[in-house]
């Protein structure tokens, strides 16, 4: 034996040495090693520091259940992954791994002082201690605790890797490719079922990988499955969650085991819908609970067998076993045969089978029945152990560098529990096993509680003559929970395991208690003097093992996080320097700054241009719904507050839409094209919501109405031409429509052509100026826009954005639903009672307008606000008070909803929702803002051209 690498054996490729580093030191392993096996082969026993006490920790397990050996891997900028289990990280050339939660170094860790002070850190310590003073928690206690207690560092740079995702469907999904899973696949292979076989490890085999006698079978089976066209094998793939209707989430790790970063996806998220699921997840060996059971060099006996037989690594040069189960004996027999020196077998039981005793005798191993380990010597590595007789506590010391634990087995029922399959307790194995399925699923092999490695006893804490309150016997290794902590929780009155878990944090670490849940249950059971089944079982939740955020985000990040909707004219706006904003998912031009202009200057210029000549605005994002059918007018009459039946074809109407509760939900101008055809518009953000609401009423309340609704939002590009010169610009370009004031009045629609393009031409205005909204098929939008820009040059046509649009509409007292209303505003509150058809017997929301709370006085009502200092522009959202001298906290009677500088008026203007506002015209209100409290007078909402002279021209 050279170092800790065995002369023979294992599945590593000894012809391919691999250089890697751990904490900056270079080491050599072989292809096929994990970081854990390669470091063990190099004699490394110290892998990390524990979460709370900073105790030195080594390897405990050989698989993904490892609680101690959490490490970080650095693959370069933005490619830093913390909290990986050294037992699951495959080594490759250049791998750069680091230990965690230590400072300044793993061997000399300042935080280890916590271990000496351990008596001051009982269960619930943080909750009990850092209560006072309250203000210290956020600034002092929490940051300090986070620094001291913790896992790896979170990466700080953006992740440059690509993550793929896919859906898959199969008839049979098998999770776990150990012997049971492989058997299930072989059995189903001959059918014409589509089969998925997935396993978290880098090769098929599971437990068989540690059993050389099974390797020929394994190789035959592997070949057969690979050759089967209906079998898909996914290795390095973790089924992390089992969801409704046999939907399984799995992450496949594609590149982390390779030496170089690549452009291909790092991981792939599989969303698999399976006809049937077979769970073959195996079982996890249980640690034993005794003083010092977390010392580096103390590990599970099954793990030692894996390291020897699969990786060709001896976990120590002199090994002792503490066991309560036959399987430990079999493991050390296998180790002895592989060339590992076995110093002693200590079994807590008084009787074990003569076959085991004979084999131990034959191999020359000392056996101590009815004995327990009571202490472990050595800090960074076991140097010796104390054992004693369970009856008379007569003790002895055994020199060894490694102590194996065999505390029995826990079936891995995690995914079964995700699927809401029920569990049954089995006293003989001291564990829960799958009982009734909730999905079309079954468990096979060790995860169903069936195994062939003998029997054992279940024991909560090993007998010891020591004072139980002074020993460190760990239950949850990752969260540093000891047997003492669980007993303390019970003494303090916790009864349910759910509460004990939260108080002690047992099972709440990143390993979700894979090695600790059952020991915790047993200890609580003893302390409460109740059977395990009476104290409950904590829930297993996805993910089975921690997964990366990248895998879940997949491609949905950056520009692909959500779609950005753009209009046909968007490209022109971008080329002409528009500053954009997102409205719902639409990208809209906010303003078009000229050289040197800030937003304020640009918006002022754009507003003045509209009022003095003509402005052009991309209104394509307006929601549009085509309402067609003999009952179209009747339908709209029932939906909107306004009367629609008398609206003549060719005319438009402002429509106000309420929800059934009487509150405004949307508005927009709509046109009647024909007796049975309407062109509706909605707010930009409300289009989908309004269509859904209309479909709901049409399909479920009034299915007798013969009406069809079609979303046409994206069918039309809409260009608003607004300003006194709008008609002059338009007239020469339009055919088939008489644009004169008499023939085409305000709030009318005509169909014809513009520049040869078919158009629905609206004469409408959201600015208070003479205005038109030109609807053309979307593809013509930009071409028409550019033509209007060219033809409009003689009028100094000015493109304006949403910001100027907001100012112009506010000058005219037009509201924006969602800005000036908040879902609790009625038409009356908004001053829109003129839009409510008083004679209509019914419409959506009508009955609610008579609800007691809605007719009660003191409702918030929308009013205009004019600041006493015309240069002060109030903050939107600023609160309003009646008396600024009242004591703080003041009674707030409303808030500012819209507020702008109006260049046209040479002063600021605002809207506000104020309790009883309609009754306050002319009175002064106070708006406290940073630095100063401003005064403003309540006014009407129309600040400009109240008589509408500019509109009707």
């Amino acid at each position, binding site marked *: 034996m050279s170092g800790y690498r065995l002369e023979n054996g294992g599945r590593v490729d000894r012809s391919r040495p691999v250089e890697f580093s751990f904490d900056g030191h270079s080491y050599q392993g072989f292809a096929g090693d994990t970081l854990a096996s390669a470091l063990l082969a190099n004699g490394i026993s110290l892998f990390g520091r524990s979460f709370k006490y900073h105790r030195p920790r080594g390897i405990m397990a050989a698989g993904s259940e490892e609680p101690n050996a959490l490490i970080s891997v650095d693959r370069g900028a933005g490619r830093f992954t913390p909290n990986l289990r050294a037992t699951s990280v495959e080594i490759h050339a250049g791998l750069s791994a680091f230990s965690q939660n230590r400072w300044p170094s793993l061997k000399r860790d300042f935080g280890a002082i916590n271990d000496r002070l351990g008596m001051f850190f009982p269960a619930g310590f943080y909750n009990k201690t850092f209560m006072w003073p309250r203000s210290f928690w956020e600034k002092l206690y929490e940051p300090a605790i986070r620094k001291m207690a913790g896992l790896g560092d979170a990466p700080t740079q953006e992740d440059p890797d690509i993550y793929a995702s896919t859906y898959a469907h199969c008839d049979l999904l098998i999770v776990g490719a150990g012997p049971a899973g492989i058997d299930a696949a072989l059995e189903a292979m001959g059918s014409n079922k589509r089969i998925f076989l997935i396993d978290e490890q880098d090769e098929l085999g599971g437990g068989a990988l540690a059993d050389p006698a099974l390797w020929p079978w394994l190789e035959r089976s592997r070949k057969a499955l690979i050759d089967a066209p209906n079998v898909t094998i996914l290795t390095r793939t973790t089924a992390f969650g089992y969801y*409704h209707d046999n939907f399984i989430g799995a992450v496949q790790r594609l590149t982390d085991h390779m030496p170089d970063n690549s452009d291909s996806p790092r991981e792939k998220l599989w969303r698999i819908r399976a006809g049937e699921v077979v769970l073959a997840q195996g079982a996890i060996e249980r640690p034993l609970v005794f003083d010092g059971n977390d010392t580096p060099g103390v590990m599970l006996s099954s793990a030692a067998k894996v390291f020897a037989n699969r990786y060709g690594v001896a976990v120590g040069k002199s090994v002792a076993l503490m066991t309560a189960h036959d399987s430990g004996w079999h493991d050390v027999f296998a180790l002895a045969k592989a060339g590992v020196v076995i110093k002693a077998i200590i079994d807590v039981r008084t009787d074990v089978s003569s076959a085991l005793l004979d084999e131990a005798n034959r191999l020359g191993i000392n056996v101590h029945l009815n004995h327990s380990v009571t202490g472990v010597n050595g800090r960074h590595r076991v140097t010796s152990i104390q054992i004693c007789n369970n009856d008379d506590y007569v003790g002895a010391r055994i020199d060894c560098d490694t102590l194996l634990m065999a505390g029995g087995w826990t079936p891995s029922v995690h995914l079964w529990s995700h699927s809401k399959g029920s569990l049954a307790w089995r006293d003989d194995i001291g564990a829960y096993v799958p009982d009734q399925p909730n999905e079309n699923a079954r468990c096979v092999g060790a995860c169903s509680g069936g195994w062939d490695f003998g029997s054992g006893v279940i024991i909560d804490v090993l007998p010891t003559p020591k004072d139980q309150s002074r020993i460190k016997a760990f239950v949850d290794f990752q969260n540093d929970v000891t047997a003492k902590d669980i007993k303390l929780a019970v003494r303090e009155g916790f009864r349910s395991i759910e509460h004990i878990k939260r108080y002690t944090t047992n099972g709440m670490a990143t390993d979700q208690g894979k090695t600790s849940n059952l020991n915790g249950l047993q200890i609580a059971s003893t302390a409460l003097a109740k059977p395990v089944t009476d104290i409950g079982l904590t829930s297993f939740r996805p993910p089975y093992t921690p997964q990366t955020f990248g895998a879940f985000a997949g491609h949905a990040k950056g520009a692909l996080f959500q779609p950005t909707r753009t209009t046909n004219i968007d490209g022109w706006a971008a080329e002409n320097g528009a500053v954009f904003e997102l409205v719902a998912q639409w990208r809209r031009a906010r303003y078009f700054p000229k050289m040197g202009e800030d937003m304020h200057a640009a918006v002022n210029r754009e507003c003045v241009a509209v009022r003095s000549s003509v402005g052009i605005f991309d209104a394509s994002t307006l929601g549009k719904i085509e309402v067609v059918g003999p009952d179209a007018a009747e339908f709209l009459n029932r939906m909107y507050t306004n009367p629609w039946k008398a609206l003549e074809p060719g005319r438009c109407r402002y429509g106000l839409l309420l929800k059934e509760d009487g509150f405004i939900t949307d508005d927009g101008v709509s046109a009647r094209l024909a007796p049975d055809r309407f062109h509706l518009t909605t707010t930009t953000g409300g289009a989908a919501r309004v269509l*859904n609401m209309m479909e709901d009423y049409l*399909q*479920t*309340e009034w*299915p007798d109405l013969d009406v069809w609704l079609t979303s046409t939002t994206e069918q039309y590009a809409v260009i608003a031409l607004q300003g006194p010169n709008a008609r002059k610009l338009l007239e020469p370009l339009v055919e088939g429509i008489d644009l004169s004031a008499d023939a085409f009045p305000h709030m009318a629609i005509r169909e014809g052509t513009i520049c040869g393009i078919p158009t629905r031409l609206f004469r409408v205005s959201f600015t208070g100026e003479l205005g038109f909204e030109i609807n053309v098929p979307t593809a013509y939008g930009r071409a028409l826009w550019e033509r209007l820009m060219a033809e409009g040059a003689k009028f100094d046509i000015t493109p304006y954005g949403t910001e100027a649009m907001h100012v112009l509409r506010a000058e005219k007292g037009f509201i924006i639903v969602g800005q000036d209303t908040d879902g609790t505003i009625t038409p009356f509150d908004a001053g829109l009672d003129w839009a409510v058809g008083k004679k209509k017997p019914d419409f959506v929301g*009508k009955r609610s307008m008579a*609800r007691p709370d809605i007719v009660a006085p003191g409702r918030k009502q929308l009013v205009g606000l004019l600041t006493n200092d015309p240069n002060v522009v109030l903050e939107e959202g600023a609160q309003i008070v009646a008396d600024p001298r009242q004591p703080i906290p003041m009674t707030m009677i409303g808030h500012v909803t819209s507020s702008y500088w109006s260049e046209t008026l040479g002063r600021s203007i605002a809207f506000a929702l104020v309790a009883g506002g309609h009754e306050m015209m002319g009175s002064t209100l106070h708006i406290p803002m940073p630095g100063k409290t401003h005064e403003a007078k309540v006014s009407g909402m129309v600040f400009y051209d109240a008589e509408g002279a500019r509109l009707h021209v």
Partner: protein
Amino acid sequence: MILIHCPYCDEKRPEIEFANAGQAHVARPLDPSSQSDEEWEAYLFIRANPRGRHHERWRHVHGCGRFFNAVRDTVTDKFETTYKAGEPRR
């Protein structure tokens, strides 16, 4: 992710194609103006919150667009049945 049977498409489709639309069989009164405040309050706001069988409306919003009714168990999240709007309560 649950599979939901759309009674119009007559297919089981993943739940991301659907949107829940609240309790089923809450019919809008034919003449709301004749409703007392209490009756109208009950229609607008008062909804069942059963543990177990629950009648719900769903819309196959990213499919055929139709609203339909369903019986779902609020404990197990399993759909017992789905049926077309207008059909009697199951």
